[in-house]
């Protein structure tokens, strides 16, 4: 199973997006799970966790550069989530799922 992690400010909106995206993959019989954490835990997660992909939410763009740098160091992809893929409506969830699929390797 592949695992992606969404990083956001307080981990609340991202939890919602993670849950809905995981359900989307389940419905499509795809073995991908999405989880969420707060930006304060972001650095540690990228360095030490077993996730295959890290997604930085649009409202934490100010941390993106730092997270990308750590991603480079440990050889894990860190991508930014575009505005229209971070909204809990069907097109938003689909955008998020596509983003995960394209980058999870």
């Amino acid at each position, binding site marked *: 199973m592949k695992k992606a992690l969404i990083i956001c400010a307080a981990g609340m909106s991202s939890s919602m997006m993670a849950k809905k995206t995981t359900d989307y993959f389940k419905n499509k019989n795809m073995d991908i799970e999405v989880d969420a954490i707060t930006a304060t835990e972001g650095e540690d997660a990228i360095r030490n966790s077993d996730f295959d992909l890290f997604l930085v*939410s*649009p*409202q934490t763009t100010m941390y993106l550069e730092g997270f990308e740098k750590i991603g480079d160091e440990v050889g894990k992809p860190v991508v930014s989530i575009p505005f229209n893929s971070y909204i*809990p409506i069907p097109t938003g969830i689909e955008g998020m799922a596509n983003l995960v699929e394209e980058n999870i390797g």
Partner: protein
Amino acid sequence: MKSEDIQVVAFEIILHSGNARTMVHKAFAAMKEKNFKLSTENLKLSNDELLLAHKSQTNLLQEYAEGSHIDMEIILVHAQDHLMTTMTLREMAIEMQTLYEEVQNIEKRNQTKAKKTTG
């Protein structure tokens, strides 16, 4: 208002507040570089984003005022938290810009004084 609609409004508020916060951070960075034109520009842009967040919120309040029942979902509380903390951060940034400018003025005065005494 459906739960899904409330979630969408909450996300709009969160995203616009987030953009605003990113711009405030850019303004802080510019202040450190003493680039006050750039910091002022970023503070203005952050205000534009906050206005968009407010606009989403206003739609919700208007529906409420018209008598439609709005469930106070936790995500909405969270969105409000994003908005208010970012507004406070922006107000702080404006105060700090004044201080940074004052520090620059003092530095300039000291430099001219030093020149006079050595010259």
